[in-house]
């Protein structure tokens, strides 16, 4: 029985899981970025990413190559994210957190509606960034697309880490998330740091969307809703306040769900989501602040 186990299949499924989890990780990272500075989950993050993907589709349709459209879309999304923060979130900056959360729910409907309004709701296709041809690594066939997705996800995460760790802007971003009042006293424009965070989050969401759409074959306005769900789950699994946690949590979730779908028959596709959520709940009950989160000690 043990001898007959197909290690090749396990390796292939793990890479597929990492590839899917990588796209979730980018969106999860976007969520964590905003969570750290505002204390809310941006429920519209997925829809904003979907909107960016539609922009990329329009650009490709106007004759740009995938990679030209890719980088242009990231830039547009960055500016768009900042604009959204300035117009919609700024007015409720001092309101209770739940009010801000409801505003992001409103934003969810607004962006979804705008995308249907502009692009109508028929399905589209985005060309594949990488060839879907299999490649042979140590006797196991992997698809280039999956490996490419993993590479892009890792690349974005590393870039973000470099930004936060080694630049002055990154330091200001971290400072204003940790202690807004003192940062303001030190001359950091905290409100603008918040906007910058939204811009970065939107840009990361855009990458996530542009990797997800080609992998699915065709897409419409519902593209990112499932991804958002898994990104929230991954971020919570890793600990909402921790960027590393978001990445690791999403990757673990991606591999876990792919493997469960392959090896456990009775769960199938129907119960995959409930099962994954149940596992996350179990993890949370043991570690209430996620795998990498720290429980805050508060004074009364």
């Amino acid at each position: 029985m043990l001898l007959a186990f197909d290690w090749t299949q396990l390796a292939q499924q793990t890479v597929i899981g990492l590839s899917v989890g990588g796209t979730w990780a980018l969106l999860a990272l976007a969520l964590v970025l905003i969570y750290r500075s505002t204390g809310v989950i941006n429920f519209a993050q997925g829809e904003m990413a979907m909107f960016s993907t539609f922009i990329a589709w329009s650009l490709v349709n106007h004759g740009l190559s995938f990679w030209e459209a890719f980088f242009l879309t990231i830039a547009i999304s960055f500016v768009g994210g900042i604009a959204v923060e300035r117009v919609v979130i700024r007015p409720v900056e001092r309101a209770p957190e739940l009010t801000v959360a409801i505003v992001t729910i409103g934003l969810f409907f607004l962006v979804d509606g705008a995308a249907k309004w502009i692009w109508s709701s028929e399905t589209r296709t985005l060309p594949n960034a990488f060839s879907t041809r299999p490649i042979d690594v140590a006797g196991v066939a992997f698809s280039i697309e999956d490996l490419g997705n993993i590479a892009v996800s890792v690349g974005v995460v590393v870039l973000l880490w470099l930004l936060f760790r080694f630049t002055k802007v990154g330091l200001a971003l971290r400072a204003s998330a940790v202690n807004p009042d003192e940062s303001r006293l030190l001359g950091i424009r905290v409100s603008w740091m918040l906007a910058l965070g939204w811009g970065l989050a939107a840009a990361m969401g855009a990458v996530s969307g542009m990797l997800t759409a080609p992998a699915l074959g065709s897409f419409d306005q519902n593209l990112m809703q499932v991804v958002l769900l898994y990104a929230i789950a991954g971020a919570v699994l890793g600990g909402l306040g921790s960027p590393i946690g978001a990445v690791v949590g999403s990757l673990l979730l991606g591999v876990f769900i792919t493997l469960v779908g392959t090896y456990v028959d009775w769960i199938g596709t129907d119960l995959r989501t409930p099962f994954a959520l149940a596992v996350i709940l179990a993890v949370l009950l043991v570690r209430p602040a996620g795998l990498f989160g720290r429980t805050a000690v508060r004074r009364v």
Partner: protein
Amino acid sequence: MRRALGIALWVLAVAAGIAFFLVLPRFVSDFHSRELAQAGVFFIAIVGLNLLTGYTGQISLGHGALMAIGGYTTAILVTHEHWRDVWTIPVAGLTAGAVGFLVGIPALRLSGLYLAVATFGLAVAMPSILKKFSGLTGGSEGLVFVEKAPKQITGLGGSVTIFGHSMTQNHFLYYLTWTIGLIGLTIAWLIVRGRIGRVFRAVRDSEIAAVSSGVNLAKIKTLSFALSGVYAGIAGSLLAIQTQIVNPLSFTFLLSILILVGAVVGGLGSLVGLVVGAFFVQYLPDVSTHISERPGVPDFVYGAAIIIVMILLPSGVGGFLRRLARPLTTWLYTRP
């Protein structure tokens, strides 16, 4: 003297509210009283969520799932056991209350957004769970009252007679829903202004301080969840009675989100504003479809309306009303 005037004003306002509730169906069409009945369903669920989120500080994004428990309890009792539909309401409330109690247990470990996400998971998973147990729930087709138990539907013939008054089915549903809604509101008010309400608020404002003062956190949190579950279950049951059908699509996670939107728009930690919250959630989709039928535009208007209301009224309608009435209340409750 001023105190007596204050009480008199209160009594007058309540009497006016009840009178308005009683005569409203005379002035609107049969169809509109059906819509008002649906708003009542939202109202009951929102009052329940407000006890939990507004007063106890526990965010739930899973109230749609609790409504599903109530709705399916009613549907199963009507179609499998042939109960009369209205008699299932208390059972639906208690069942959902019990489930709410169970949901409250993880809440002892989780706080804030982690709890919100955990309950959101319940709401997302509910439709697939309902589909899986198709023997009981009828799978994705759901349970249709008219097919399986037409005799158990109150007013299927078109009219209902209560205490000698004959009324159309839709008027009956309006009175049924809002009577339960107003009773629920009164009970919520009594809870909130009493000892338990004070403990709820203590837990909301600081768990540590509450525990230090001798509050049994486990008891209070699960009690709040259970109470809130009873309201959600009754709301779900009434929804099933009104539509005479339940299926997994009646209780998607969107429903949970709408209830939360209604509660925040109505004003967390207030009760009167919740009526406005319920009407907001019920009528906004109609209003936004009226503006333009073009695909996408209703969603756009809908989202924009939520954002604008939240920017203008960050503490909801309840907070706005309180601010508006402050000169009056200050005058009434100050000794001259």
